[in-house]
């Protein structure tokens, strides 16, 4: 069982993804353990200015409904959250979300670096960061922040990615604990779940 050397100290999972990550993300969400105890906080690049549709598409595939939180909404155990279109989404001390309309970063709003970086600041070593397929460098700095605070870093195996720029950027910036195919990310999450029973 200890393939990944996990434990029950984690408080949240953050996931970043861009071009080519939709399949991976839906696979992960569709195979979540029914009792998964941690919030899953996702920041995915998405069509600009299309507010509707995406969260619904993810929800259909997901074991639990996916929500786009409101500003200052509390982060709940087992909640699955998606950064809304055209807003950056931060995690704040006190365990809630905050939205902002600051300038785009890496041509993106929401920017993965912001969600991952602020989550790292709040959850420190109790955070798992996962970065999937993507066509730009967003998320690399966020993964570095997670590693620097002692969290666990995982990227999708570049050879499996439709576009591998994003995971490779993270690999170049920081130590990545696990480079995994999506199926193995699913196994890791299922193994993690067992520590919380």
């Amino acid at each position, binding site marked *: 069982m200890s393939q990944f050397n996990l434990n029950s100290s984690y408080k949240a999972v953050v996931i970043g993804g861009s071009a080519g990550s939709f399949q991976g993300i839906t696979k992960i969400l569709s195979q979540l353990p029914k009792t998964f105890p941690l919030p899953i906080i996702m920041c995915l690049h998405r069509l600009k*200015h299309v*507010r509707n549709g995406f969260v619904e598409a993810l929800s259909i595939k997901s074991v639990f409904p996916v929500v*786009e*939180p*409101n*500003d*200052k909404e509390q982060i709940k155990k087992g909640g699955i959250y998606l950064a*809304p279109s055209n*807003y*950056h989404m*931060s*995690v*704040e*001390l006190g365990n809630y979300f*905050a*939205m*902002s*309309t*600051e*300038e785009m970063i890496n041509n993106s709003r929401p920017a993965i670096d*912001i969600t991952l970086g*602020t989550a790292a*600041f709040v959850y420190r070593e109790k955070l798992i960061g996962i970065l999937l397929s993507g066509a730009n460098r967003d998320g690399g700095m966020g993964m570095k922040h997670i590693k620097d605070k002692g969290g666990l870093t995982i990227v999708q195996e570049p050879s499996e990615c439709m576009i591998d720029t994003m995971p490779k950027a993270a690999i170049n910036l920081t130590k990545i604990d696990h480079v995994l195919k999506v199926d193995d990310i699913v196994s890791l999450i299922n193994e993690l779940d067992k520590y919380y029973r």
Partner: protein
Amino acid sequence: MIQDIDIADLKRITELIHSKYGYDFRNYAMSSFKRRMLRILEVKNLSIESLLKKLSESPVFINEFLDELTVNVTEMFRDPGFWRVIRDEIIPGILLNHKTFNIWHAGCSSGEEVISMAILLREMGIHNDVSLYATDLDTTILEKAKMASYPAKNMELNEKNYIRFEGKWTLKDYCKEENGKVTFDKGLLANVTFRKHDLVIGDVFNKFDLILCRNVMIYFNQTLQNEVLKKFHASLFKYGYLAIGSKESLIWCDVANRFLVVSNEEKVYKKIKD
């Protein structure tokens, strides 16, 4: 480049600004405030100590500082579905009771939201019957708003929003392009009063039938949001409307039970109790 700022250092900055200039950022949301501070230190090439020194010794710096600190990103007809609700439900609702009325744009930034409203009102044929008040804390951005002149490259997005709003014409009909800038017809701003107003320390200064405060309170923590929402409640006539940003909500605040949800999707509320 400085990678991070301690909460203690952020406190020193907000305390200094508060005691010396009266602006109160102590209840702003932490993450975005910290990013803004990091950005200021980077673009002005300052250390925390030199920033503190500059703020305490050079009063002219404060306006420049406020302009950098505030997030001014905005669009015309942002969230087109919201503007359709304003045109098709909210304004007809106000017109049932009043022929003339007041609108307040709180946190108007560079004015795109105000121009959008003016265009909407003109297309409804009631532009002359409405007084608009547009306020912001940031005087630099207010000057830009008065000019109604924007980079031409922003127009692609604005025009897309306008098409989805299902406006009557095109935005080009309302502006002229010259040297990479578009300037809107000044007549659109004829009934607009621009003025500096700080939502945190400012008083209730008028009564309104419709208040828009979109994507402003997201920069506040919940304690401050709660206080500001009380001021909005006091600034509305009974049965007046309050519109907030698409990712904001007021169901949790002290005055929530004095409002009715008119559009949950577009976040428009109606004051039903004094």
